[in-house]
């Protein structure tokens, strides 16, 4: 056991001194652990893109006159796979390499496995896409920029009921083996009950399902006027399309998992008119969101901005800004890596950020406080191959972190 303890200490670079900002080796490293393999790769690719755009954005930042030099940041990316063990390995690898902070992992289930490791080693983590209840509560070093749909999910239901107050019969679909969808549907169903609506049909599907003939025909027998869906992008796109093909004409509200342009090619013209609550709206007209969209257009002209990409951008952005604030205050001088990590975490939680998601800040335990949420309606082009999320409502949420409702998990 003594030998093992020595092994552990040698592997821990926390005691190493942080170099001066203008030293030749003055760059500090941010680590990223996201899904580059496995079936969460769909999100991982969007996250890789978002972080690379944020690095481009950070690279173009100029030192203001009279300020100390900016602290250069490196970025080190590791595959977190789509399982718990690979995410743990990625975290350990990067922590041993002496990263200042970590972005990731992609899935909430992975976060529950890997975040406690960063917490024990005192390494700040910003989760770009974990929305399960209890993620920031893993410890003081864990925070997230992924929105709490406990606040946003009910908005789209309200919008649907506002448009047609006569709706009485609601059918609910969700994929029961997906952390995000199961918690989101709980919020959807609670909202419905609060409005006096009991679902006439609840259909459970699997993440790998894409053929919904059976659940759809079962649900349609109950003759619903509103269908509420919590399924991830591709499966959800298929469900919407098949619902319409099988003759459903009523309103459709979809969950946050479908807030990605990836659904357009899947459900094509059948997407038209569905309502969605968003944590990120591409139509938000602020300088930083315009910059984000321009950078995206420059690097990947064929991709439209998605929530996952914007959240990953935001994760890097908040870390970058917190590091520079800390640098300006002299908090990175004469400290070792462990102290710098702790100081960074405090700085991160104390700040306010103007991001593509809108203005955000954190609660003291690392939970996201996002000021603005959006309800959009999908408007497809006549060709049915592409479309846009047309903003129909922008809702300011004052101060609250979501109150007692539990946020869904991706």
């Amino acid at each position, binding site marked *: 056991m003594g030998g093992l303890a020595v092994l*552990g200490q040698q592997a821990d670079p926390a005691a190493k001194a942080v170099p001066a900002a203008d030293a030749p080796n003055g760059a500090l490293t941010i680590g990223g652990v996201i899904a*580059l*393999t496995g079936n969460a790769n769909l999100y991982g690719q969007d996250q890789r893109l978002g972080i690379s755009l944020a690095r481009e954005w950070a690279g173009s930042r100029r030192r203001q006159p009279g300020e100390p030099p900016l602290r250069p940041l490196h970025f080190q990316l*590791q595959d977190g796979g789509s399982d*718990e063990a690979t995410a*743990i390995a990625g975290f350990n690898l990067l922590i041993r390499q002496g990263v200042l902070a970590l972005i990731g992992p992609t899935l909430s289930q992975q976060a529950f496995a890997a975040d406690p490791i960063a917490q024990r080693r005192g390494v700040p983590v910003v989760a770009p896409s974990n929305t399960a*209840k209890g993620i920031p509560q893993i410890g003081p070093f864990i925070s997230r920029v992924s929105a709490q749909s406990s606040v946003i999910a009910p908005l789209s239901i309200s919008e649907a009921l506002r448009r047609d107050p006569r709706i009485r019969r609601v059918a609910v679909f969700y994929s029961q083996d997906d952390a995000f969808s199961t918690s989101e549907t709980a919020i959807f169903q609670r909202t419905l009950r609060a409005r006096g609506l009991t679902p006439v049909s609840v259909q459970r599907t699997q993440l790998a399902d894409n053929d919904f003939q059976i659940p759809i025909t079962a649900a349609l027998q109950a003759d619903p006027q509103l269908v509420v869906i919590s399924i991830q992008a591709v499966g959800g796109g298929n469900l919407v399309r098949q619902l319409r093909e099988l003759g459903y004409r009523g309103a459709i509200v979809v969950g946050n998992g479908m807030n990605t342009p990836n659904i357009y090619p899947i459900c094509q013209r059948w997407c038209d008119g569905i309502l969605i609550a968003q944590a990120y709206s591409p139509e938000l007209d602020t300088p930083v969101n315009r910059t984000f969209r321009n950078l995206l257009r420059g690097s990947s002209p064929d991709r439209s901005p998605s929530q996952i990409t914007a959240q990953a951008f935001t994760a890097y952005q908040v870390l970058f800004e917190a590091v520079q604030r800390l640098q300006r205050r002299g908090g990175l001088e004469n400290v070792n890596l462990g102290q710098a990590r702790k100081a960074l975490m405090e700085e991160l939680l104390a700040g306010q950020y103007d991001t593509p998601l809108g203005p955000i800040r954190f609660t003291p335990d690392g939970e996201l406080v996002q000021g603005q949420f959006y309800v959009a309606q999908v408007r497809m082009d006549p060709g049915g191959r592409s479309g846009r999320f047309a903003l129909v409502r922008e809702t300011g949420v004052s101060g609250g972190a979501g109150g007692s409702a539990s946020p869904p998990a991706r």
Partner: protein
Amino acid sequence: MDPALLVQMLIGALLGISVYLPLATGQLTLATPAFYAVGGTLAALLSTRWPVLGARIDGSFPLPSFLLELALGGALAGLLALLVGRIVLRLQGIYLAIATIALVEIVRVAILNLPFTGGAVGIFGIPQPFPSAAGYLLPALALLLLAGWVCQRLEVMALGRAMAAVREDELAARCMGIDTTQVKLTAFVMSAVLAGGTGVLAAHFLNTWNARQGSFDSAVIMLAFVILGGSRSWLGPVLGGLVLTALPELLRPVGDARLVLFGLVILSGPALFPQGLVTPGLLERLGRLGDPAGRPGAEGSRP
């Protein structure tokens, strides 16, 4: 090397032995992930929901409770194997393999649907009996040594010889008066006990547990541990489990192509080493090294 990776490798080795044990009686069962999932779920439930075990608010967990869980996890998995084994072990060859895959899927769906296992998110915040990943090396190594010692003892025990006889020719073994059903069942239960205990260890090590642990894919990868390592001795699955668990991590510098390379290794391994890395020839040489008098072997005491 990273202690956490070492622990994962040891878990791979333990699961390899679990697949190997029934195979040592000639039975291809892929039920190990099901028992692994049962053990892990039990540990996750007990340590987070049962205050008697003494999980503390700072996330630590008393070592005796952890050991108790190991025993309980093994026992529950073994009990389940005793019930299921009587039924499935009547099946032969690929039918047995597929029936056990069916068991894995049924257990996975059950863990997903049961009201107290946390659904898709699973159970998280599992308390820690050790302050760091390195702490898990000791129980994992101890479990592996225990399993290895049992396997090694089997070679000189009547049960082990009966297992070998059933593997070579079940009909002949029955004619020799061996209760083949009992022998197969015993191996199946031992395999389950080991898998259940390993699940308990893994649940604490991973900090969290959900229905995705223990799936069809993992069943076949575990079989690969045995086949690539060598199925003639327990050392084979140990080596296979260690190497194949480490390989995707060691291939990280390759980047996005690392799983393609991992697949190529699995694809070409059996052709390059048809008897596995630990071949009978190698074992013989090892045996001569370790025991100058020669191993007490087949000529020992036939009934």
